[in-house]
């Protein structure tokens, strides 16, 4: 009962944290909309793949969304900086800059690279782990062969006997 209660409170806490971060994102967005509309437009258009990824990625930790966001943001960051560097930040200027094909390609391409990274990394890790396991098995077999060479068949018999 206590355990159920504690896990419920844990779930509630996590949900609360998530809701809090969601609210803070919306609050930031609203603030950004009111204070720096050109930046808001650039971010909204540029980070659209990340937004989609955050909406569809329901896995724990949302690693795919984080992957996509990281590189997507890397692609958006130069244009944000470009807007910030202009003496007068205007919506039309921001829109013009964002909707250029090259800019879109860089921003979305970066998001795509993030997604590719997400897809490519697990097989790479799996291969590394498999290779490491194989190397360990080979080391252990070598060690066993050495023991048999030193102690003869009696070792196997004793292992079998103790195993039985």
């Amino acid at each position, binding site marked *: 009962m206590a355990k159920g209660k504690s896990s419920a409170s844990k779930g509630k806490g996590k949900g609360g944290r998530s809701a809090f971060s969601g609210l803070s994102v919306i609050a930031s967005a609203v603030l950004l909309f009111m204070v720096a509309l050109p930046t808001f437009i650039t971010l909204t258009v540029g980070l659209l793949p990340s937004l989609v990824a955050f909406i569809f990625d329901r896995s724990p930790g949302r690693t795919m969304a*984080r992957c996509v966001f990281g590189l997507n943001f890397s692609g958006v960051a130069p244009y944000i900086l470009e807007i910030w560097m202009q003496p007068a930040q205007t919506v039309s200027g921001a829109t013009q800059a964002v909707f250029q094909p090259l800019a879109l390609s860089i921003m979305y391409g970066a998001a795509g690279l993030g997604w590719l990274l997400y897809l490519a990394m*697990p097989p790479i890790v*799996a291969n590394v782990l498999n290779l490491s396991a194989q190397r360990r098995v080979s080391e252990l077999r070598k060690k066993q062969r050495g023991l048999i060479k030193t102690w003869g068949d009696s*070792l196997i018999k004793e292992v079998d006997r103790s195993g039985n």
Partner: protein
Amino acid sequence: MAEQAEDQEQDVSNGAATEPVMDAPGGGAPAPAEPEETSENDEATISAGGKSVEIGNFRVFLDLRMPEFDMGHCKAYSADNLRRDEGSAFALVTDPVLPTRHDHMTFLTGMHMAGQIDLIDYETAYWPPFGRKTMVLFYEKPAGGRVLAKQTKKLPIDEHDIATVVVEPLMNAMQAFGEKGLAHRNIRADNLFFADPMHEKVVLGDCASAPPGYDQPAVYETASRMGADPAGRGSGSIADDFYALGMTLAELGIGRQPLKKLNDQEILELKLSKGSFQAIASQEKLPLVLIEPVRGLLCDDPEERWGLAELNAWLDGRRTKPVQSNTEKRAARSQNLAGRDYYTCRSLAQGIAKNWSTALAPLRDSTVEIWLRRGLGDNDRAKALSEAMRQLQWAGADKRSAEDVLVARSILILDPTGPVRFKGFASMVDGLGFMLSYDVQHGRGPQRFADVIVRDIPSFWFSRQEGYSPEVQKQQQLYKNLRYYIQQQSAGYGYERCLYATVRNQHCLSPMVEEEYVVEIADLLPALEKAAETASEESWPVDRHIAAFIATRLEDDVEGQLMAMQNPSDEVEYSRAIISMLAIVQWRHGPDNLQNLSHWVARLMEPAIKVFHSKARRERVETEIPKLAKRGNLVELYNLINDEQERRKDQSEFVEAVAEYSEAESEVFDLESSGPARMELAEKVGQQAAAFASTMIALLTVSALFLMHIF
């Protein structure tokens, strides 16, 4: 059962009546077809002419028989003492299938005693006519020859001189034996020799070449011991020697063996019905002067029988107290058994022993018990018999065995001083060992002895003895050991152990060394060394006889080794135990170099090498074994496989190796069986790594852009 009992009865009666012959070992049993090459023998070598053989310090002439010095079943040969010029010796060759008497040989060797022939030495040696080794005793020739010469009918000693010529020296010898706690048990007129040419003193002949009383005519034995087989008449006491002295005097007085016309059974019955003295006096004409000592010495009650004090008194011409001629109580009416009437308990006991199967019915229907109560008025015996009957009712499934025990116990109730009798087996308790030896070496096997011990008949004999006797106590202790030995089945125990424990001079009967006549433990390994030359590869150098022989004769405790030998299927422990036993014997008694035996042992060491787990250690031991075997040292061979420190190290390392191997195996199994889990892990880790990498790229990009704009 009845038929078996009758067969056994027949065997016993035949055996008792047979005169021992000494043409060949075993009293006439066929000797080996061809004598072995004597050149192989260390101790005995036949000279160039093939007529003599050197044994120790003596040269024995094979073609110079001396029948005048034959003693009992043993033949005498002329012998020269190679170390001493004075004196003349003769060799008495013992029968290799009859044990000699160790205590008597060690007591008499090299000692001069008035009244006893001088035993100069004794040796175990190869005897060509037998084709095997045997014990040869060397005696000083008595100057006057045998007292009872076969060719003369004349009395050898005047009846008035018997006291000084015979009784005095014999008393001296008997006293010396008595002081050592020994009994001669071979006192008879036939075994007397004149010590001097003037025939002034006699000496007793050999008493060590055969079991006690074995060569005695039955008439010389007391009624108690007569009922036993010759080999089982027992060591006895000085009282038995006095009885034999009485009979000797009677024979010297009348000039021939008393009651010679009667067979052993008739003599026994006569003695039981009339008493020993009356039995002689009624059939023979005793000289007047000898009547008193013969009566005193032939008294059937050992407590009443004359001893040294009475004989001394008689020699001094003093009168001694008269003795009861016959103390056996006679019943008012007879007890019939198998068509014969018996009037005394002891004669009935003998009758039961001789009619084993038919005796059961009168015992079971209480006829004997009623006879004891009403005919003899002996309520104590009747009560004991009734108790024995009651115990029969408690017997379990083995009714036959219980019935046999009842018959055996009934005999002991009726004749408590007599021999233990069981289905044809008849031996005094102090003669059980010699009886076993005789049975084993004469084809009867140990079964009869084992039956008696397993059924605990001697215990009943002990319970029927009246009063305290240190001798009986000693025998009882020895018997307890025998019972323990016979109940154990493994090597080192069984009848073999009983044999060597009870007969000190029993040679080892292992087929491997039997012909080497190994009596002393020090001779065992040389005999095995010889046997190793022809031993088959699979055979072990220690069999049941050798294990029992070592266990009995060796000063060290080998119970641990015997325990290890209980399980021959455990080859490692079995071979280690055998090598250990032989190594201890070599360490204690030598010789230092036993090449053949070492090679034999080395061949059998393969299982013992398995005590080491390490291949390197095994290989080292395997290379060491031939080198050590070449040196002929069993102790070194044993130490090689019994290095306790090395073994312990090997064992602990092996345990570690087993653990290491198992751990590795378990890890390999885990690695090989964790593929899906690893893929799952890889996916999770990969995704996290990708997310991390992506975040890091974002941070680096932003940082780089800022830095670019700043600088």
